[in-house]
């Protein structure tokens, strides 16, 4: 047995901190840490000095003061006697609302256009290419402003919907069986009413409508029942080789309970009617909201169309041919072979488009829609003069929204992504 003795352990020398790769990373990290912390301390120190000079302090108590301004669109009850915090919440919900609607519309537009752009139809493919290239290469701000200009310049005033008593004809007619009336200030749409509704539970945050709660519960129940039905069909198919017909049962399960619940609650659409100078009865959706929604959806839709197109093209033709060779029908091929693979390519960039749309919704400032920036970063900031607190809080909230969206979508992405073994 020869015992190989290690080289004598040399004592630690200071120069090893720089020249020895084992310790150098430590040195670099410590130096960077000190520099970054010094930088942050410098910024904070400057801020404190500046605040002192201006005679201001740094606190968020202004959020509990009375806001004193009105917000055009509110998803939760709000009056100008509420606090700035409440106003901020209303603005935040408006941001989320327009973002959610925008994401949904943009996805629909994107899928539609992306698929049509691959169509063999020469005219349609060209039209879709023109749409995508035009919207992608021009700033979203222009699309929002153009949407607003279209709505305010080209739509009639509410007064023009008035039925002339002499001739019995209106200057302009409403859309969709007299239910929707675009005007130069707002779009009047029907509102929903439940004639034997159950009322609402009042919480400090917002009243929770029992009617909608019931409908949502019915929907969840239907979805669960539908899944059970499909699972059962699978079992039967596995056992006997024959798949029982499910489509009409699915349709019945999905739609039946909701319709029954809605009818039981006395679901009714209140159509807007011109009374005096304005439409009443329905809901008047401000043009600012519609313009922002339209502009964001059309712009982001063009990007999503490209993502969808790339995703479909990324699935090689051999996959489809192999599925056909196995005897799968075209729609089964699409749902079982092509889509799962295309989704894997589509989802990650789609997430970042959703994030972009949400961040772009802060362009509400261009049309005067009261989103988070309009309330907290706009009127609250101007009224209280607390720009430091307001803007930092606003950035923090946007950051939270972004991180939440990307977190949720990443979870989804993990479920569809390729499982590598």
């Amino acid at each position, binding site marked *: 047995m020869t015992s190989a003795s290690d080289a004598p352990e040399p004592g630690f020398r200071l120069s090893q901190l720089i020249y020895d790769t084992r310790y150098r990373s430590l040195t670099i*990290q410590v130096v960077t840490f000190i520099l970054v912390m010094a930088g942050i301390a410098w910024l904070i120190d400057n801020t404190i000095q500046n605040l002192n000079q201006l005679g201001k302090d740094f606190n968020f108590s202004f959020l509990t003061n009375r806001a004193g301004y009105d917000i055009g669109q509110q998803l939760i009850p709000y009056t100008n006697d509420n606090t700035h915090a409440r106003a901020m919440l209303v603005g935040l919900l408006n941001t989320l609302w327009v973002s959610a609607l925008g994401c949904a519309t943009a996805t629909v537009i994107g899928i539609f256009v992306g698929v049509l752009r691959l169509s063999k139809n020469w005219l349609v493919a060209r039209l879709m290419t023109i749409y995508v290239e035009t919207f992608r290469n021009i700033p979203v701000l222009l699309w929002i402003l153009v949407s607003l200009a279209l709505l305010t310049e080209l739509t009639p005033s509410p007064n023009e919907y008035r039925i002339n008593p002499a001739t019995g004809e209106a200057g302009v007619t409403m859309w969709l069986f007299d239910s929707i009336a675009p005007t130069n200030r707002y779009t009047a749409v029907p509102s929903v009413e439940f004639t034997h509704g159950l009322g609402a539970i009042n919480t400090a945050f917002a009243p929770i409508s029992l009617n909608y709660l019931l409908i949502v519960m019915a929907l969840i129940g239907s979805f669960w029942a539908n899944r059970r039905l499909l699972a059962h069909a699978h079992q039967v198919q596995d056992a006997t080789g024959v798949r029982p017909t499910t489509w009409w049962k699915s349709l019945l399960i999905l739609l039946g309970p909701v319709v029954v619940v809605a009818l039981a609650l006395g679901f009714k659409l209140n159509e807007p009617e011109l009374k005096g100078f304005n439409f009443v009865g329905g809901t008047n959706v401000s043009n600012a909201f519609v313009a922002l929604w339209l502009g964001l959806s059309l712009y982001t839709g063009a990007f999503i169309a490209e993502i969808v197109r790339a995703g479909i093209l990324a699935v090689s033709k051999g996959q489809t041919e192999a599925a056909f060779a196995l005897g799968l029908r075209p729609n089964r091929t699409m749902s079982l072979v092509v889509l799962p693979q295309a989704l894997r390519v589509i989802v990650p960039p789609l997430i970042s488009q959703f994030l972009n749309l949400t961040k772009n919704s802060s362009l509400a400032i261009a049309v005067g829609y009261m989103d988070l920036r309009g309330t907290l970063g706009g009127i609250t900031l101007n009224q209280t003069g607390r720009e430091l607190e307001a*803007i930092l809080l606003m950035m923090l909230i946007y950051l939270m929204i972004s991180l939440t969206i990307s977190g949720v979508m990443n979870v989804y992405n993990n479920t569809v992504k390729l499982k590598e073994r």
Partner: protein
Amino acid sequence: MSDTNAQSTAFVREAMLPAKPAPVTQVGAVRWLRENLFAGPVNSALTLIGMFLVYTLVTHFYPWFRHSVWNANSMAECRAAVTASFGDGATGACWAMIRERWHQFIFGFYPPELYWRPIAVFVLLFVALAPILFTQLPRVMLGFSVIYPLVAIWLLWGGSIWPVTMVAVGFGLGWLAMRRLSAYSSILAIVAAVLVPVLFWLFAVGPLDDLLTSVLPIGIEPVASDRFGGFLLAITIGVGGIVMSLPLGIILALGRQSDMFLIKTFSVVFIEFIRGVPLITLLFVASLLLNYFLPPGTNFDIILRVMILVTMFAAAYIAEVIRGGLAALPRGQYEAADALGLDYWKAQRLIILPQALKISIPGIVSTFIGMFKDTTLVTFVGLFDPLKGIPDFIRADFNWKGIYWEPFIFVGAIFFILNFSMSRYSMYLERKLKRDHR
């Protein structure tokens, strides 16, 4: 069986029949129409819908274009001219506004007699870009690319030549110090490269500048930042932002890929923070908060403040693009660099970054396009961008009150041309630079 067949063959044609013309549905325009527009009921329906759409758009907008007025001095004159030529109720585009105000869309309120300066900067931009884009050109031209930013700043804002020269001298001194000291110790060289210019700018520039200005007062007429506007402003912020963000983005990307925990954490936090907030909030930081964060009494130019924040914004996005490039490099490239015994910076400089940056070029170009579009947001901090600031200013003039579509179309068309050509160029680059790494 076979003989009966053979015997029953009473007649064999020896001459070929002349080829018949293909059915009319299988040739020429008809075939093209059948294949491309009417291949089945769904396809035909789509075609008809598409045709209807085109027809509607054309019938709505063509008359408006046909009634264009180019010579007028106000909206009222435009309307009068349209009514005079095409009768009551006719509407027409009033391009006369563009003819009268085009210079504001392009240059903002830059003094007209000095227009040659932004034009020169724009032309020189391509001279500076040429050696970077085309490797066939002589390498000497890269020298001009390096000093171009300072030349551009001096030409755009004007004033004395000395401050800009001092900045250049500072960089030069830093480079010199690094060259001299790198023979002794690389650490010392890096520290000197940072410290020497900083010390020079902090202590030597003031007296030197005064001295040189009093001896040799060379300078051109200064132009204040509030005279900037239109596409001049958009391109200045866009190009300035992307040029400054590239080095920062590379450092952030390397930091995010680093093995060192703290470096990685700082990079990730910075990138995710910037990417998580809308640009508009960062612009508000530039206009409202930056003065809080800097030493009391500091108050500098709004365009510079916006540019700092835009740079940070672009850097975070560019870092992600470059990280993609770094991740796309095969592992073997890193391992080969290690096997050759290169240290981290040499490996990055000679092996990793040249390849990673090449892969990222299309991404960088699309980031630039996105940023160029986003420069229109500076309108919300009171700058005159071409999309909202300038048209709003023009509409505030009584003569052009109520002109909506013409500025949108004009500015939109310019944005489209610039961005579309850039995206096509990046697609061309992508094809040209494609090397399969597998």
